[in-house]
């Protein structure tokens, strides 16, 4: 059991005042005053509707907000919901906020939430992203019920998303986790998820928490810990999720906290994933996954230009990471015109696997390896966008399935590189 020494005295005092709970809702925040108010209302609404008899607490782990985010969360009283609600809580809904640091670290926030869940002996816990404006009360039930009533340890969400939203997930994380770990978890990097107290405690105890890097990407490590630990996993369809506004500069941090975490997990998990072949569906609740197809403006020229300039400028870096045949092929496609340009699935999979092997062997600084993937990913995004411009939801799903099978087919290639000494 984690000793919870990193928790502040004031936070511990508040937790003691709350006592044991059945359900814990974790809300990591950092300057989310614009969105967090309605989200907290929805969470409370979801709890009132679905779990009025359960002892529930909302834990806000804040990374030094200066816009009054914490006050918004703790200030929302249960009475605020009564005018538009016909349901009443039979128990007190507590809301506690703690500032774990003056700078935001998603991993530290998650660790705080997990420690609180363990101290309060919560049976079911969920974590909600403060950016998910499209949240509905059904999301709360969808994430809690499988844990609280059906005995699952991890509830991974699925959403109705735009076909071009979350392309790092559909083009790398989902296919690679599926091919290597043998489980078809659509959202391995989860912004919302539910988990049992059992999984939470084990993850809290066994995860290598690091104070230096802030443990960003711990959400993906929870998924991988559940898979490798043999926990019961299910997927819950939550409904439509609006894309979060991103800037170009967000890609590298996103790669670090998702792909970087996945690559770093492959080494300790080698015995598990090297013995797996093929993949299995995980139990799912709710509707089937589907894509939104509304038109979306995408700056394809910029994507391709950044790929081409990346291949040309980073050639010396790629020489350390990629095989000569893969690099030669990348250089060849970089020379194609915009109309002819395609980054085929097989080449993309080879690229990713070669990056993973280079990461394992630390051929250069590991963070540099992750950064070097960014321009190549843009090339893959260009191809995905072009290939699926007029595609139906089924076609998009089939294309993603095809990519997943390619990842599974080429898994021996990764194993071969992994085992080779140089």
């Amino acid at each position, binding site marked *: 059991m984690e000793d919870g020494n990193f928790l502040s005295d004031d936070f511990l005092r508040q937790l003691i005042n709350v006592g044991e709970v059945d359900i814990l809702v974790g809300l990591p925040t950092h300057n989310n005053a614009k969105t967090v108010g309605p989200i907290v209302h929805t969470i409370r609404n979801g709890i009132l509707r679905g779990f009025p008899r359960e002892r529930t607490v909302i834990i806000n782990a804040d990374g030094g907000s200066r816009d009054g985010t914490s006050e918004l969360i703790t200030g929302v009283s249960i009475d605020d919901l009564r005018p538009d609600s016909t349901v009443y809580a039979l128990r007190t809904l507590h809301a506690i906020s703690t500032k774990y640091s003056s700078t935001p670290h998603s991993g530290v926030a998650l660790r705080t939430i997990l420690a609180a869940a363990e101290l309060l002996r919560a049976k079911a816990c969920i974590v909600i992203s403060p950016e998910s404006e499209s949240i509905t009360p059904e999301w709360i039930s969808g994430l809690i019920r499988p844990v609280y009533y059906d005995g699952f340890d991890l509830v991974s969400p699925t959403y109705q998303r735009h076909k*071009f*939203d*979350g*392309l*790092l*997930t559909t083009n790398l*994380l989902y296919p690679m986790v599926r091919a290597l770990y043998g489980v078809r978890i659509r959202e391995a*990097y989860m*912004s919302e998820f539910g988990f049992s107290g059992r999984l939470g405690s084990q993850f809290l105890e066994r995860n290598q928490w690091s104070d230096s890097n802030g443990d960003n990407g711990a959400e993906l490590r929870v998924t991988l810990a559940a898979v490798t630990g043999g926990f019961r996993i299910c997927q819950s369809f939550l409904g439509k999720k609006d*894309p*979060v*506004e*991103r*800037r*170009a*500069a*967000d*890609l*590298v941090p*996103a*790669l670090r906290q*998702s792909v970087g975490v996945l690559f770093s997990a492959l080494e300790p998990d080698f015995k598990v994933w090297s013995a797996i072949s093929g993949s299995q569906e995980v139990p799912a609740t709710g509707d089937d996954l589907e894509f939104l197809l509304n038109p*979306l*403006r*995408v*700056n394809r020229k*910029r994507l391709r*230009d*950044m790929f081409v*300039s*990346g291949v040309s*400028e*980073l050639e010396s*870096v790629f020489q*350390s990471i990629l095989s000569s045949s893969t690099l030669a092929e990348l250089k060849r496609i970089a020379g194609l015109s915009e109309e002819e340009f395609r980054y085929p699935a097989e080449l993309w999979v080879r690229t990713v696997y070669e990056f993973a092997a280079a990461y394992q062997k*630390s*051929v*250069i*600084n590991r963070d*540099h390896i992750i*950064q*070097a993937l*960014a*321009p190549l*990913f843009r090339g893959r*995004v260009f191809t995905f966008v072009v290939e699926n411009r007029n595609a139906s939801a089924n076609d998009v799903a089939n294309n993603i399935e095809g990519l997943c099978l390619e990842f599974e087919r080429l898994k021996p290639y990764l194993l071969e590189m992994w085992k080779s000494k140089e």
Partner: protein
Amino acid sequence: MREMIISELTQAMQDLARGFAHYLPRLIVMLILAFLGWLIAYLVKVILRSFLRLIKFDRLSENAGASQLLNKAALPSATEIVSRFVFWLTLFGFILLGVSVLGILSLQEEIARFFLFLPRLFAAVLILFFGMLAASFSARAALLAAVNANIPSPRLLSLAVRSIIMVFVLSVVFEDLGLAEQTMLVAFGIAFGALMLGLAIAFGIGGKDLARRFLEQKFVRTKKEQDEDELSPL
């Protein structure tokens, strides 16, 4: 007259024999030391080579950019170079030790100076190696950051970073070796100043369009550009 010549010759021969008898044991000691030195140097080379292979020194050297330089100069790997360097240094040290046994005063002074110089030489080699490592790391970090931020001429930026660090490292190395300290100080000042002035001029004149574009992209992006900017990756 004849007797005098014979006597002088005998005296000279006797002096030579005495001198030779005096130096012979020392010469033998010197040869033994040289042989022992060769043996120890060889052992040190083999052990060092195995150790460097174990810690993957060649990869470290590749990261530092030293391997590329060695390849271009058709030289062996960094592990081999370091092993050979230590071999010759050890052997040379023993030979000098042997020579000092001969008791030639002027040579002994030079040998003492050489041994005093050794720690500084090692320190300089270490500074150079880690300096190259730092320069290579920083240059690659700058290159990646510039490529991912879509900044024009990323390789130029990377080269500038590498050059600045290497100029600094070389000046420290020369200072450590005590080689032309004043000249190096002035040369460093001139080179560093020229580099900074060049960069300032380049940014001021050549880069004014670039600076304008950068500032425009940073602060006056239109709504349309923002909409088209990036797809949410996760």
